[in-house]
C-alpha cells in the first residue's frame, strides 16, 4: 500500500512538478477557453445573420418574387450562398476545416490562435444558424401576423417579437452547442496550438507515462463542462421564472 502511494507520488511529481509541467495544462486550459469564447461569439454572430437571411427569404419569397427587382435577386443569391456554407460546414469534419484554414487559406498567417478561432467560429456559426432557424420556424405564425397587423414592419416584428422568443426557447440548445464547441477545440493541436489536449499529450510524450496527464486533461474538460452546465441551468431557470 505504502509502495503504491509513493509510486503515485513519484508519478505526480514526474508529470506535473518536474520542469513545471503543470504549466502546460494551465496554459492549455486558458487557451482552450479563449478559443472557445471568441469562437462562440463569432458563431452566434454568423449564425444569427445566416438564420435571419434564410428565414426572411423563406417567409417573404412570395411577396418579393411578386415585386421582382434587384432586392429579390440579391436575396436569392445571398440565400444560396448561405445554403452552400451550411452544406460545406456541416458536411465536413471540423479538423479538416481547421487544417484547410491553417495550411491553405491562411497559409501565410503566423497567428494560429486567430485562425483557429475563425475556423471554430465559422464552424459553430453553421450549427447556431440551424438552431436559430428552427427556433424561428417554431414560433407560431400568429405572432408574426399580430406584429404585422399592428403595422410593425418585418424587421421590427423580428426584433421586438420573434427574436426574443426564439432566444428564450433555444437557449438550452445553444448552450449545449457551446459545450460541444469547447470540446471540439481539442483538435487545435493539429495546427500547432498548445491547447489543453495538446498540453496533456506533450507531457505524455516527455514522461512516457500516459495515465496521469491524460486523466488530468479529461478531468479539466469535465470540470469546465460541468461548470457551464450548471450556469446554463441557472440561466434557464431564471428565464422561466421571469414569465411567471
Amino acid at each position: 500500500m505504502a509502495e503504491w502511494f509513493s509510486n503515485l507520488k513519484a508519478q505526480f511529481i514526474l508529470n506535473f512538478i518536474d520542469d513545471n509541467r503543470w504549466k502546460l495544462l494551465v496554459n492549455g486550459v486558458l487557451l482552450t477557453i479563449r478559443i472557445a469564447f471568441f469562437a462562440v461569439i463569432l458563431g452566434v454572430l454568423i449564425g444569427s445573420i445566416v438564420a435571419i437571411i434564410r428565414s426572411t427569404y423563406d417567409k417573404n419569397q412570395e411577396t418579393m418574387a411578386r415585386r421582382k427587382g434587384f432586392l429579390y435577386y440579391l436575396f436569392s443569391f445571398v440565400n444560396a450562398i448561405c445554403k452552400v456554407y451550411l452544406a460545406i460546414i456541416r458536411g465536413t469534419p471540423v479538423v479538416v476545416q481547421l487544417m484547410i484554414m491553417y495550411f491553405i487559406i491562411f497559409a501565410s498567417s503566423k497567428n494560429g490562435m486567430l485562425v483557429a478561432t475563425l475556423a471554430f467560429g465559422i464552424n459553430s456559426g453553421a450549427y447556431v444558424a440551424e438552431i436559430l432557424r428552427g427556433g424561428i420556424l417554431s414560433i407560431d405564425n400568429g405572432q408574426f401576423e399580430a406584429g404585422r397587423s399592428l403595422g410593425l414592419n418585418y424587421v421590427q416584428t423580428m426584433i421586438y417579437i420573434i427574436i426574443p422568443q426564439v432566444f428564450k426557447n433555444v437557449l438550452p440548445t445553444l448552450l449545449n452547442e457551446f459545450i460541444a464547441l469547447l470540446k471540439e477545440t481539442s483538435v487545435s493541436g493539429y495546427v500547432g496550438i498548445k491547447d489543453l489536449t495538446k498540453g496533456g499529450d506533450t507531457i505524455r510524450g516527455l514522461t512516457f507515462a500516459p495515465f496521469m496527464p491524460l486523466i488530468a486533461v479529461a478531468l479539466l474538460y469535465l470540470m469546465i463542462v460541468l461548470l457551464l452546465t450548471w450556469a446554463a441551468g441557472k440561466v434557464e431557470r431564471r428565464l422561466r421564472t421571469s414569465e411567471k
Partner: protein
Amino acid sequence: MKSNGEVLIKTEKLYKSFGDIRVLEGISEEIHKGEVVVVIGPSGSGKSTFLRCLNLLEMPTDGKIYFEGVDITDPKTNINSHRQKMGMVFQQFNLFPHMTVLKNMTLAPMKLLKMKKEDAEKKAMDLLRKVGLAERANAYPSQLSGGQKQRIAIVRALCMNPDVMLFDEPTSALDPELVGEVLSVMKNLAAEGMTMIVVTHEMSFARDVADRVIFMYDGVIAESGTPDEMFTNPKNPRTRQFLQSIL
C-alpha cells in the same frame, strides 16, 4: 343604418387562390365608415381569407382593395402605415407571451406613433380600465384566462387608434362562459361608432349589433342585407339552409 357614410374599404373583383385551391372568386364590396358588418358562412367558404386580404395578411391573387381611398394592393403602397389604421383581432388572441399586458399594448404606439412611454401607458391604462382589466396590467399573457386575453387583444389593437377593426372569430376559441365578456366589449365598441368587420358564428351578436350581415358561400358573397332581412327572410336558398343548420 349607418351605411350611408363615406366608403372606408372597397374591394373590386377580389380573387385569392392558394396554389390550385381557389378560395375567393371575385368579391366586390364596400364597407362604410361606422358600419358594423358581420360575415357568416359555412366553414371553408373563405371568410377568414376575405378578412385577411383586407389588411394584406393574405396577398390577393387578383383584384383591388381601396382603404381610405388608397389602393393598398398597389405594390408601391406602404402597407405598414395603412395597417396601423386597421386593427385586427385573431381567434387565437396572439398576445406576445414574453411581454406584460402593458408592454403588449404600448409596443406599437411607441415604435410606430412615436408616443412617449408615459402617454402610451396612460392610454393603455385608460383602455384597460374600460374593459375592467386595469389590475392585470403587469401580468403576462400566460396568467390570463381566454376571455381576458381576447379583451387585451382588442384593446391592444385600439391603442393604435384604428379606423376599422377586423375580427376573425374572436370568441371561437373561448369556453362558452367567457364568450359574453368579449362580446360585450365588442358591443361597446360598436356603440362608440367604430367601423367593424366581424367573422363570427355568434348569431345573437349579428342580430343585435350588425348593421349588415354578409353571407359567404364558396368564395363569393351569396347574399347581404340587414340582420332583419337575412334572418327572417333570406332570399338565397343557401342562406336559408345555412341559417337552419346553425340556429
